[in-house]
Structures are given as structure tokens and as C-alpha cells.
């Protein structure tokens, strides 16, 4: 069967892709637009994409009212650490689960899936009590531990899929060529697995970066709070919002994850190419 598509079909595909991108980009573009609008434009019946009188006032107010940089630093520390630790723990576990076809591995996979169904509310109280007695309430370390535990099942599940996608025959061939277990893992499996590891790390990072409830409950001191918690300080009762500064702060909050995405995306592509060509 030919993989070639006709021009109209291809144009249709591009159009669909464009529509999808516009749909995805709309909230972000609107957020940026709102962040630079003066208060009076926010209340306009005919809002514009580009602010008529762009202002940095919302940014100034957001920084004046809340410790955004400190909160961003906390979020970055927590999210990067959680992503790194989750990947370091999950990768060997996933390898074993994918390669060992035993009842234990099947049961472990099942447990991982079931554990995703636990609601936050069921785990938060015992977790809170345990962390309290470990003196890890109001501690970024405690929050990192929580995020690692929370993202680990899904990270594991993702990685098992990636490991299974690496043909075992390649490892067998390496063994036939005389490579030891470790050499095979480092030289053959790891490069092919790299995109999966990076994607999993991204998942863990984004999960931790955006998480609100655990951070709200576990962190007491203002100097420890993460960005999602700080952002709610622009919200009042019954959903009333200080919209300009909230949009400005939310826009700033998206920047680190965008930068990390941009860097990592290049790494994923590189990893995929590295895995595609056997040298």
C-alpha cells in the first residue's frame, strides 16, 4: 500500500493540524494578552487580541503583591528533583517488569494501574501524618518525596511500554557479540530508551510543577510555597479574581516549563534518531 497522499488530502491534514494548533494556542495567547492589558481594558465589552495600551502594571503588581521569584525557585527545585528521582527509580524497575514475564511482574503492573485510581483525598491524611512525624511537613524535601511517590506508578507504566518497544533481540545480539549485561544496557538499550526516559521525566516534571493540593496542605510557611499555591492568592471567595496580576503571574509560571520543553524536545528528537540508526 502506498504511503503517498494526494495534495488535497495533505492540505486537509495541514488545515486540521493548524486548527488544532490554534485551538491549543488560544488560551495561552489570551493569557499573554490579558497579562499586558490595563485594568480598564479587562472590563471591555469588545476585547482585543493586542492590548490597545499595553502595560507592565500587572507584572509590577504581581511581583509587588506576591513573592513570585521565590515561589518559582521552589517549584523548580521540587519539580526537577521529583522528575529526576522518579526516573532514576522507575527506569530499572520498568526494565525488570518489561523483561521478566512472571506473575509477579503482571501483578506489579496491575497494582500500578490500580494505584492510579486512588483519589488524592484518600492518601493525603495518612501521608500528612507520616510526613509530620518525619518532620517533613513544611519542607520541600517532604513535598519532593510525595511527588516522586505520586508520579512513580505512571512513570513506571510509561517506561515499561518504552522498554517493551526495544527489541530483546538487539540485547541478545549484543550478548552474542560478547557484550556483558551492563555494557548491553548502557550501549544498546539506554540510547534506544532515552526518548522514553526524557518523556517520562517531562511527565513527572509537569505533574509536580502544576500540582496544587499537596503543596497547599503540606507547605505552611510563605517562603516555602510553590507557584500554584501563590497563584491562588490572587483569587477571592466565590471565584472573584484579581485578573490582571493573576494573568501576569500565570504567564510567568508557564515560562520555565516552556523553556524546559523546548530543551527536552530537542533531546527527544536526538534520542529517537540515535535509536533509529544502529551504528
Amino acid at each position, binding site marked *: 500500500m502506498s504511503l503517498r497522499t494526494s495534495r488535497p488530502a495533505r492540505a486537509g491534514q495541514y488545515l486540521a493540524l493548524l486548527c488544532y494548533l490554534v485551538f491549543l494556542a488560544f488560551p495561552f495567547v489570551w493569557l499573554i494578552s490579558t497579562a499586558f492589558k490595563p485594568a*480598564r481594558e479587562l*472590563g471591555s465589552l469588545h476585547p482585543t487580541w493586542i492590548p490597545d495600551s499595553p502595560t507592565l502594571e500587572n507584572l509590577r503588581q504581581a511581583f509587588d503583591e506576591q513573592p513570585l521569584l521565590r515561589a518559582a525557585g521552589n517549584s523548580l527545585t521540587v519539580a526537577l528533583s521529583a522528575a529526576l528521582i522518579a526516573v532514576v527509580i522507575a527506569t530499572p524497575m520498568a526494565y525488570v517488569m518489561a523483561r521478566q514475564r512472571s506473575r509477579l511482574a503482571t501483578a506489579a503492573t496491575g497494582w500500578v494501574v490500580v494505584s492510579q485510581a486512588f483519589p488524592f483525598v484518600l492518601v*493525603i491524611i495518612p501521608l500528612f501524618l507520616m510526613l509530620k512525624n518525619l518532620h517533613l511537613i513544611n519542607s520541600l524535601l517532604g513535598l519532593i518525596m510525595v511527588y516522586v511517590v505520586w508520579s512513580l506508578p505512571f512513570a513506571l507504566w510509561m517506561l515499561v511500554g518504552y522498554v517493551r518497544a526495544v527489541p530483546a533481540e538487539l540485547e541478545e545480539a549484543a550478548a552474542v557479540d560478547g557484550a556483558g549485561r551492563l555494557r548491553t544496557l548502557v550501549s544498546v538499550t539506554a540510547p534506544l530508551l532515552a526518548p522514553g526516559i526524557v518523556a517520562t521525566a517531562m511527565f513527572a516534571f509537569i505533574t509536580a510543577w502544576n500540582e496544587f493540593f499537596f503543596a497547599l*496542605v503540606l507547605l505552611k510557611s*510563605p517562603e516555602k510555597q510553590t507557584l500554584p499555591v501563590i497563584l491562588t492568592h490572587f483569587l477571592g471567595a466565590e471565584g472573584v479574581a484579581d485578573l490582571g496580576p493573576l494573568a501576569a503571574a500565570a504567564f510567568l509560571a508557564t515560562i520555565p516549563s516552556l523553556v524546559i520543553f523546548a530543551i527536552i524536545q530537542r533531546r527527544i528528537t536526538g534520542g529517537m534518531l540515535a535509536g533509529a540508526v544502529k551504528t
Partner: protein
Amino acid sequence: MRTRSLTGAGTHTGTGARLVAAAAALGLLLTGCSGGDGESSDGRITLRFQSLAWQDESVQVNKELVKEWNAAHPDVRVEYVQGSWDSVHDQLLTSFEGGEAPDIIHDASDDLADFAYGGYLADLDGLLPDRLRRDIPERSWETAEFGDGVYGVPFLQEPRVLIANKKILEASDARIPTVEKPWTWAEFRSATKELTAGEGRKPAAGQAEYGVAWPLKDPVSATLNLSRSTGGQLFHRGADDKVTIRYTEADAEVPAVIHDQVNSDGSASGATLGMGGSDTLPGFFGGKYAMVPLGFSYRQQIIQQAPKGFEWTVLPAPAGADGATQGVSPQTLSVSEDTPHKKEAVAFIDFLLQPENMVRLAQGDWMLPTGTAALADPSLHTAKHGWGTGAALARELLPAPAQSVRGYPEWKDKVATPALQEYYSGAIDRAELEKRLVKDGNLVLARYQR
């Protein structure tokens, strides 16, 4: 210790509660118990005060007051902790369960029932100074009384008012209502017709596209609280202390006006029924709606966002057979049952709610103080920004009807919100609304009163 569900006040099921209790017990078994009492080795006490103030001015006032207290009381230090209205119930519940609750807790009275019945909050009866007890009217205390105890000090409240486009209103033939002579609900309905040009029509002088925009994303509290003016009560407590729901003519009057404005008269926009208050402001500023019923504190947003030259005024909400009264759920200050320093915590609350301080807090939040002395402050009776209208209305405020009804949050979310939304949009009639509110509602409440 009783265990509560994290999913909302009073919404736990037996199984859910048991699961959470078991999880909590397991956590305790695994980890053992420990905890501090907020007292340092030199005998100095530190109290944690979690405030939900969020507007810049309000946060500043709270921080200033804490600073003033700390300067005057070196032995009882108060630490300001910034809380958040978002998820405050779950956050507090977790802190209570974990023995890490703040000593002094800022919340809203309609969130307290579960905590009070759950034994998490200290009964303040007997601890409160006479001055504070006398200063706040009995009707406000009722919002924080559960069973025989007092579990919070109500200190800020806000009535619902009509914010009107001044130019449109003055150019119309409608009578402009005052606090002394507010519109009746019938007058309000005819005034909104008067002010309406109709959808898509170019409004004449004294008209907007719609006379009113009802932001009813959360229709239950607005409906119940405004229905107090017509004698609406909905929840009736029997001699056996059990609450049942009855939907009387008095309960039906306000919903019928809103329903007819949207579906018969075309004087209220159907599009705003799913909106929050802030969402209606652009249309209000653009002259699309002549009036918007909003909480009193929305004035701050209007001042910030209104275009230059836009003139607006604050009108009292319409009155019914019971006058201009309406229900409110004031903001409260409570003390954690676990704190060993209840007397000191109450002393701080007493300081925070001294009349002059209560005025500062009210101004910071654009709300009204509950305290009689604070409410008499001349700065709250100026015509500017409608302060005087609100202050006059404060005399008529009563506890929200569902204040102490267990199971109310579940009834509200699962029964009343969808039923009222469908009724206001014209999808169901009054009979169906009544059936759902009463029949389905009583089934929900019965589960909490076995």
C-alpha cells in the same frame, strides 16, 4: 475523634468516611504521635493565624494588625499565615486530622458546621469578652452557633446589591429605589422591562439591551439568600430537631421573578445565567445590561475596571413581604480545639476586632463589619462608592437559610444547582423544580439525620 470527608462539608458517605478514618488510624499507627504546643523554652507563646484575606489592601491591613499585636504582646507572638479560599475546607480538614491546624482560623460561616460538629473547633462560649459578645448582633452570632456552642466570631459580611448604570437609570422612567423605599420584586420586574430595549435592538435613552444580568453560575446561595426578603426559608426544623425541605409560595417568589425575566419578559439575559459576577462586568460597562445584582465587595472590581466616565450607583436589592432583609454567611474567626492557648487566641481575635480595627478590615475587603460600633463609623456611611447604602442594608441581614443544615453542600451540588439552573433557563417548570428540590432534597438530608 470523628472523621470527616474531604470532599466537602458533610458529604461523606459511610464507606468513604471509614476509609479515611482507617487511613488516618494506619498513619498514626505507623508513625506514632507527636506535636508541639506552640510554646518555646522561654515560655513565649506563638500562635499561627491563617488569614484568607486576598486583596492587596486587605492583606496589608491584616499584616499591620498582626505587627501591632506583636509589638504590644511580646509574650504571645502571632505568626501570619496566608491561606487561600480555594480548597480551604480540604486544607483545614487535613490540618485538623494531622494535628497541624492553625491556632486562629479565618473562614466563612457556611463552612463551619462540619468542623464544629466534628469537634475540630473550640467552643468560644465563655471565652469571648463581653465587649465583643455585645458588639456583634445576635443575628450574626446565629451564623456561627451550632448546637449549644459558638464556633466562630462573625466579623465581615456583604449583602447582595444592585449595581446600576447611573446614566441609563436616570434617563429611564423607572423610580430610583432607595434604602428607605426599595423596589418590591414586582416593581423590580417592571423596572427591568422598562430598561430593556431587547436583544439586538439599539437601546433608546434610559434603556440597555437587557434591564438586568443575573450572574447565576452558583444559583443556590443567591436564590436562598434573596428569598429571605419574601419570607423564604426552605429548610424547616421540626420538634425532633430534624430538618426537612418545603417549597412554599414565599420560597417560589424570587425564583419566579428571575425565571420570568429571562423566559417571558426578555428583560434578563439568558447568556449570563452560567456566568460568575466578574464575567458580567464587560457587558455592564459596555451598556449591554442596565443592572447587575452582585455582592457588595464587587465595587472594588468596578472601580478598577470601569472605563473612564462610566457612572454607576449602588441600589438596595428588592424587598418582599419581610422587607429588604436577605441572608448572608459572614466571614468568621475561629479557634482550633487542639490549641492549648485558647485564651490567648481569643484575646488576639478581640484585638483584631476592636471597632477601629474592624473598620480597617472592612475597608480593606470592601465589605461591611458585623460589629455595631464599627458599623457606626462615619467612613462607612459616605455616599462615595455606595458605602452608605451597604451600611444601611447591614441592619437587615440575617443568617443564610441553610447555615447549620447538615447535608446542605450535597443537596446544593447534586440537587439544587442543576434544578435551579434548568428552571432559570426555562428547561423545567416550577412543579418539576419543586419536586426535585423537595423530594430529592429530603432524601439527601435524611441520610445525614439518621
